[in-house]
């Protein structure tokens, strides 16, 4: 047990830089009565001291690595204690944590020990054992190791709910600079192949109910923000392409945290948390609000506004679109109003069937009026006598940002995070979608 505790300490801490945290979205059928189930909306079991949610036992199988990627806490040239779990240790921890309701399941990643194929084989062996020998039916998220044989990845997907290949750096140039042992093809290759496999599997399952499942919760990826000079437009365009091309479920943005000094890395006083948050918000706009990357950013303005959320910022650049009449505008138009999220837009569409809505009704429905009021009319009325004035609205919205926002952002504590949803399992309240803007 002592030995196991030491391994868990090292390999848990080594895995913490992966931002992925979701445990939902799996349609895997519950068959028989062995060990566990998966719920469609994810469940968060705890929040760590940095405020990030804990839903899975997130560990590395090993932190022994042949790669020396500059940004990584486990790079081979760094002097840190190295450990490896056996597959039985991983399975035992998972089953016992799951049984006590500490977690929804396992998030298994790994450094590259010996070779990509060897590592992928070990990951596969572990998830297979967990399912087949331990009869575990909870959630499994497994990493695909770039550069490993696709047959190994494919087999791991039979056992896992979700798979991810981390893209880490947004351009090939940056990859060459900081992770010279990985290539763009190593990362995008498996993503593309996993996407085709998933598409084929969904088709098969439509025809045959008993067809085996293949990563039923889809694939995700992670991007490190702030380690390389790319602007937000490059990042958001890449995200858009990944969503469109590979149908990723989620892209996680992780603010770069310098763990080991390297002349190739920027000197940062603190991780760019505010930027990470703005990208996160923009990502929601792509996925749920019908925005395209080119609407949010362009070559003249390639970075997201730090002073306000990206939807308000878009609205102020497109004042001709407003004001929107709440009682007439269609759903897609409502979604573009700052302060109206997916849930409140749906509610407006329902509620106005019965009677026309005024400002007081909107408040009850859950619209964030202090932002929305500048962009809407109710029964033809604007909230006060004056005309829409872009400069004035910009000033007001800025003023509404929590006091001390900027100072705090440099020390890495954002009160903003507290009322804007920060992570996916929070949209666990069934039927609701968070990240509302």
């Amino acid at each position: 047990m002592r030995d196991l505790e030491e391994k868990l300490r090292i390999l848990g801490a080594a895995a913490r830089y992966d931002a992925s945290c979701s445990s939902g979205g799996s349609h895997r059928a519950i068959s028989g009565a062995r060990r566990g189930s998966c719920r469609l909306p994810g469940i968060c079991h705890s929040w760590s001291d940095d405020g990030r949610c804990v839903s899975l036992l997130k560990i590395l199988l090993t932190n022994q690595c042949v790669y020396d990627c500059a940004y990584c806490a486990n790079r081979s040239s760094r002097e840190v204690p190295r450990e490896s779990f056996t597959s039985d240790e991983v399975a035992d921890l998972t089953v016992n944590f799951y049984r006590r309701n500490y977690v929804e399941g396992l998030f298994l990643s790994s450094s590259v020990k010996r070779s990509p194929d060897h590592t992928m084989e070990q990951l596969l062996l572990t998830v297979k054992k967990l399912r087949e020998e331990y009869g575990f039916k909870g959630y499994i998220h497994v990493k695909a190791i770039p550069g490993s044989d696709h047959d190994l990845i494919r087999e791991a997907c039979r056992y896992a709910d979700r798979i991810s290949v981390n893209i880490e750096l947004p351009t090939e140039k940056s990859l060459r600079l900081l992770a010279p042992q990985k290539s763009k093809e190593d990362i995008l290759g498996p993503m593309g192949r996993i996407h085709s496999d998933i598409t084929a599997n969904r088709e098969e399952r439509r025809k045959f109910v008993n067809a085996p499942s293949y990563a039923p919760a889809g694939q995700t990826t992670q991007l490190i923000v702030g380690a390389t000079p790319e602007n937000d437009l490059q990042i958001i365009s890449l995200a858009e392409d990944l969503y469109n091309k590979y149908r990723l479920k989620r892209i996680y943005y992780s603010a770069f945290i310098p763990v080991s000094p390297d002349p190739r890395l920027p000197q940062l006083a603190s991780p760019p948390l505010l930027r990470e948050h703005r990208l996160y918000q923009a990502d929601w706009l792509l996925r749920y609000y019908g925005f395209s990357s080119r609407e949010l950013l362009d070559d003249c303005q390639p970075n997201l506004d730090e002073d306000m959320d990206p939807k308000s910022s878009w609205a102020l650049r497109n004042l001709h679109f407003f004001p929107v009449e709440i009682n007439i505008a269609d759903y897609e138009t409502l979604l573009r109003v700052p302060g109206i999220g997916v849930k409140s837009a749906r509610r407006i569409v329902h509620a106005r069937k019965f009677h026309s809505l005024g400002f007081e009704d909107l408040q009850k429905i859950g619209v964030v009026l202090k932002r929305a009021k500048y962009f809407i009319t109710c029964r033809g009325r604007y909230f006060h006598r004056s005309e829409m004035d872009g400069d004035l609205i910009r000033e007001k919205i800025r003023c509404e940002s929590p006091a001390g926002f900027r100072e705090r952002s440099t020390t890495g504590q954002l009160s903003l995070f507290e009322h804007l949803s920060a992570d996916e399992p929070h949209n666990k309240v069934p039927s609701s979608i968070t990240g509302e803007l």
Partner: protein
Amino acid sequence: MSPRFVYDGTFEGFLSVLHHLLNNVEDPEEIQTSEKSAQHSLWMESIYIRSDIEHSKNMKERICNEISPEAFRHIYYAFLSDRDGVEMDILQYVNLGWELGENLIYQIADDRVRRIHNLSAKVRREKHRLLGFIRFRLLPDDLLYAEIAPDCDILPLVAPHFVNRMSHRRWIVHDRKRKKTALFVDGELKLLDEEIIRPQHVPKKEDPYQSLWKRYFRDIAIWERHNPRLQRSRMPKKYWNMLLEKEPDIGG
């Protein structure tokens, strides 16, 4: 003077009251559980309505058919909020429902609807939180035991989740505040209105996975991102006493 109706405090009992009111066209001043009514004045006339399975089933069907199953869910959840006076609020909601039918649940700007939906959302939120926060301990004989003390009576809502999750084990979830127990043995779930284990009688012996979990929890935070305010907003302090990882450190 309009009378006060008294029932046994169960949801079936409450549905039986609704059934009685609907069939006798009565207009109550209050609807109360017998427990609460015992503390009240003797001056008001009170009528005790016995819990009746048939009547409650009938009422459930009528609400589901004539209003909507979704409205029935809101009623059930709001009832579990345990808030004083919720019975009369539900009565108003149901009465409005007879007029509006399936459109009831969309009238969110109407206070009678909003009150119930807000309560139901509160219960749903707490239920969902507890699905994550409940912590089982392994007791002798492979029995898993968890204690809770939620604001709302969410035990009947969370118990089925653990049936799916641990259908091959024996477990207990114990609501310390309401002295109720969910007991799962031999593949059967029982919801009991009593405590079958007193918390002080639960063996104190630490299970080794408890310290592993606490240790793990401490090591996964990134200190450069340290954010206790965010942690508290997601995981309110009132639940910390049920969270193993938030127990004061035992050293090591």
